[in-house]
C-alpha cells in the first residue's frame, strides 16, 4: 500500500488535532502528494477565498513512495491557494521532513482555520499537539530550528518552518525544512504565517513498511538505482556540478534571461557557474563548493554545500555566515545573478543563505529585484522611494542590502516583498513585470527555447520551469533532442512533460530522476508499492487528471484563458544576440494546438467530455 491511510487534520481556530482515514478512492485516482492534496484542496476550499484568510487551507503532503527505500523517496509538498497568484500552489521540497512525516504514520497534514496566537505543531508518531510559538515568532528559520531542537532535546527532530519574511507579508515566502531545503514557490510560507503557524516539528520512528509486494518493490527499486548510477547525468554530472552546470549551457544557446529579461546572454555567467563554484578562491585557496549533499534516500545528491569568502564585504564581521550552508542551485544563481546583472559569486551565495535563513523564494526575489532595477533605471523608482539605495543593475551591494531588508520586511524590502507584478503596478509600469499569472519567471528565456514559452503560459502555478521542463528535450537532448527554436511539435511535447511531471510529483519521488528514468522505470516501483494497477498508462492518465483538476481549480478561482500568455517583452521584443537573435516567442503558433490536445475548447475551457473522461 505504501500509503499510511491516515491524515492528521489540524483545526487551528479551535486548537484540535484529529486523525482521520485517507480517502482511498481519491488515492486511486490521484496517487498522492501533489495530486491527492490538490483533490482535497479542490473539495474542501472555495477557490475564490482569500488566500491569506482563515477559509484557505494549507496541506503538507507526502507521496506513497516517500519514506521508502526508493531512490529520492524523500519528497513532500505544500499545497494551498497562493497569495501571489490567486491560483493553486504546490511547492515541492526534499530534505528529510517528508520521510519523517511518513515514518510518524501520516500521509498528509491538513491545516485549517487560523490560530488566535502563534503556535507550532509537534508530532511524535501518533501524538500531535499544538504548542505556543510565542518564543519563536519573530525568529528566523535557522533560529527556530535551533530553538525547537533545544526545546525537545532530540537531534533527530525534523523541522519545517517560516522565517521573518513570511511573518512580514512577503508574498513569495517559502516553507523551509531541514535548514536549507524549501517548498519555495508561490508564497506557501505566507499562507502558513497567515494562520499563525510558525513551524511543524516531527519525529517518526514507525518505519514505512506497508508495501504491497516487498520483493517486487525491492527488485524494482534496485533496478532503478542501477539506472541512476549508470547514467552520466544522475551518476556523475549532477553530483559533481549540481544544477548549476546549466549556467554556461543556457548562456551558450542564448536563452539566459538577463537584466529583467531584456537580454538573453550574460557576460558574467562563467563567474557564477557550477564550474566557478569548484575554482579555488584567491583569498584562502578554498572553492565556493565544499561538498555535494543528498536528501532522504537520494542516490543522486545534487545539493550544494558552500561557503562565502570570509573577507567578502557581505559577511565581513558576520561570523555566523562563515560556515558551510546551503549553496547555489541554478535557479537561484540565475535570479540573483544574471537577472540582476550581478556576477559576484560570493554575494549571490550570501544572498542565497539569507533566502534560506528567512524563507524567501530566491527566484521571485531575484526577479523582483531585477524589475526594481529596471524601474529605477527608467526613473519610475528613485532613491526617495528606496531610502537612498541605488538600484542600478549589476550592483552586488544593492542585492545584498535588499535581501537583508526583505528578509525582515523593513524599508524598501516591503516593496520587494510584493513581487514583480505588484511592484511594477505600484510604480506605474506594469509592462516591466516579467511574470505569468503574477509569478516570476525561472531561468530560461522562451525566445531561445520556444516550448518553454508554452510551458510557462499554461503552467497551473504561473511561470515555472518544473511544471513542464521541455528544456530537457529542447536543449539537453533528454530523452530526444528537439530544436529549441522550432514551434512544431512543441504542444505535444509540453503536454507530455506536464502530465508525466504531475504523476512523478504525486509519487514521493524527485523529478530529477527523470533525467535517467522514464515512466517505464517509475511505474513498476509505484505498482509494487501501492495497491491497484499502476501501469505506465495509468500513471500518465493520473498525471493528466491532475493537470485538469488544477486547471479547474484555477478557473473556479477566476482565472481566464487570456492569462495563458507571456509578457509583451517576450512576444514582441526580439532577442538581440545569439542563436535566437531576431526571434520572439511564437506562443500563438503553439497554444491552439495545445488546447486541442488537452481536449479543451478553443478558448481554453475544459470540455464536458474531458471532465467526464477524468471524473471531474
Amino acid at each position, binding site marked *: 500500500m505504501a500509503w499510511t491511510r491516515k491524515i492528521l487534520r489540524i483545526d487551528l481556530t479551535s486548537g484540535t488535532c484529529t486523525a482521520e482515514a485517507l480517502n482511498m478512492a481519491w488515492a486511486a485516482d490521484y496517487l498522492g502528494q501533489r495530486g491527492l492534496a490538490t483533490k482535497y484542496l479542490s473539495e474542501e476550499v472555495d477557490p475564490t477565498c482569500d488566500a491569506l484568510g482563515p477559509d484557505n487551507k494549507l496541506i503538507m503532503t507526502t507521496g506513497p513512495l516517500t519514506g521508502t527505500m526508493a531512490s529520492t523517496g524523500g519528497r513532500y509538498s505544500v499545497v494551498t491557494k497562493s497569495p501571489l497568484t490567486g491560483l493553486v500552489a504546490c511547492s515541492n521540497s526534499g530534505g528529510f521532513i517528508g520521510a519523517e512525516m511518513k515514518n510518524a504514520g501520516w500521509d498528509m497534514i491538513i491545516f485549517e482555520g487560523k490560530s488566535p496566537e502563534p503556535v507550532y505543531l509537534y508530532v511524535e508518531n501518533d501524538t500531535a499537539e499544538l504548542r505556543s510559538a510565542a518564543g519563536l515568532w519573530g525568529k528566523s528559520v535557522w533560529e527556530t530550528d535551533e530553538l525547537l531542537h533545544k526545546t525537545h532535546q532530540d537531534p533527530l527532530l525534523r523541522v519545517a518552518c517560516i522565517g521573518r519574511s513570511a511573518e512580514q507579508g512577503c508574498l513569495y515566502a517559502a516553507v523551509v525544512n531541514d535548514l536549507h531545503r524549501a517548498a519555495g514557490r508561490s508564497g506557501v510560507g505566507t499562507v502558513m504565517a497567515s494562520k499563525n503557524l510558525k513551524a511543524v516539528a516531527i519525529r517518526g520512528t514507525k518505519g514505512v513498511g506497508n508495501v504491497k509486494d516487498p520483493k517486487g518493490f525491492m527488485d524494482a527499486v534496485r533496478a532503478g538505482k542501477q539506472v541512476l548510477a549508470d547514467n552520466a*547525468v544522475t551518476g556523475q554530472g549532477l553530483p559533481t556540478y549540481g544544477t*548549476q552546470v*546549466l549556467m554556461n549551457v543556457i548562456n551558450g544557446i542564448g536563452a539566459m534571461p538577463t537584466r529583467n529579461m531584456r537580454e538573453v546572454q550574460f557576460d558574467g555567467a562563467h563567474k557564477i557557474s557550477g*564550474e566557478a563554484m569548484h575554482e579555488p578562491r584567491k583569498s584562502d585557496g578554498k572553492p565556493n563548493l565544499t561538498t555535494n549533499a543528498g536528501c532522504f534516500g537520494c542516490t543522486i545528491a545534487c545539493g550544494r554545500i558552500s561557503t562565502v569568502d570570509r573577507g567578502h564585504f557581505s559577511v565581513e564581521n558576520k561570523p555566523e555566515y562563515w560556515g558551510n550552508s546551503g549553496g547555489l542551485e541554478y*535557479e537561484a544563481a540565475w535570479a540573483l545573478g544574471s537577472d540582476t546583472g550581478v556576477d559576484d559569486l560570493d554575494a549571490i551565495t550570501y544572498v542565497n543563505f539569507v533566502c534560506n535563513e528567512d524563507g524567501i523564494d530566491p527566484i521571485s526575489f531575484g526577479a523582483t529585484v531585477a524589475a526594481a532595477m529596471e524601474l529605477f533605471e527608467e526613473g519610475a523608482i528613485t532613491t526617495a522611494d528606496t531610502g537612498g539605495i541605488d538600484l542600478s543593475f549589476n550592483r552586488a551591494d544593492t542585492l545584498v542590502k535588499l535581501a537583508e531588508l526583505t528578509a525582515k520586511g523593513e524599508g524598501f524590502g516591503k516593496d520587494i516583498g510584493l513581487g514583480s507584478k505588484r511592484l511594477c503596478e505600484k510604480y506605474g509600469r506594469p509592462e516591466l513585470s516579467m511574470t505569468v499569472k503574477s509569478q516570476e519567471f525561472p531561468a530560461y528565456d522562451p525566445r531561445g527555447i520556444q516550448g518553454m514559452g508554452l510551458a510557462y503560459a499554461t503552467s497551473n502555478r504561473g511561470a515555472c520551469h518544473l511544471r513542464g521542463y521541455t528544456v530537457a528535450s529542447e536543449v*539537453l537532448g533528454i530523452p530526444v533532442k528537439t530544436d529549441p527554436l522550432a514551434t512544431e511539435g512543441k504542444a505535444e511535447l509540453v503536454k507530455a512533460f506536464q502530465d508525466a511531471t504531475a504523476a512523478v510529483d504525486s509519487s514521493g519521488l524527485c523529478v*530529477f530522476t527523470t533525467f535517467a528514468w522514464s515512466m517505464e522505470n517509475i511505474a513498476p516501483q509505484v505498482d509494487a508499492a501501492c495497491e491497484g494497477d499502476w501501469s505506465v498508462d495509468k500513471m500518465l492518465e493520473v498525471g493528466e487528471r491532475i493537470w485538469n483538476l488544477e486547471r479547474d481549480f484555477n478557473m473556479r478561482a477566476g482565472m481566464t484563458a487570456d492569462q495563458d500568455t507571456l509578457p509583451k517583452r517576450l512576444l514582441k521584443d526580439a532577442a538581440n544576440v*545569439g542563436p535566437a537573435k531576431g526571434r520572439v516567442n511564437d506562443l500563438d503558433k503553439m497554444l491552439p494546438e495545445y488546447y486541442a490536445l488537452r481536449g479543451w475548447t478553443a478558448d481554453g475551457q475544459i470540455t464536458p467530455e474531458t471532465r467526464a473522461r477524468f471524473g471531474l
Partner: protein
Amino acid sequence: MRVRLELYASLMGYLPAGANRHATECELPDGSTAHELLDRFGVPRDKAHLVLRNGVFLHAPERDAPLLVDGDVIAVWPPVAGG
C-alpha cells in the same frame, strides 16, 4: 582558419595547460569538422554530448561535416542536466 574550443564540466580536463578557464584557440585547415577539432585535443567523441557551434546544436552527422569556418566557437559538454 582559427577557431575557439570551449570545454565545460568534466571535459575541462582536456584543455591544454594555460587555457583561459574554459577556452583555447587553434589553427585548423579549411574544411575541418567538429570531430577533428575534438580529436586535436583528445576529447573522446562519445563524451561530447552537447556540441554547439556558435550556440547551435550540432547533430551527430553534422559533427563529421566540413562546417567549420574562421572565427567559429565550438562549445562542448558531457551529458548534463539541471533544473
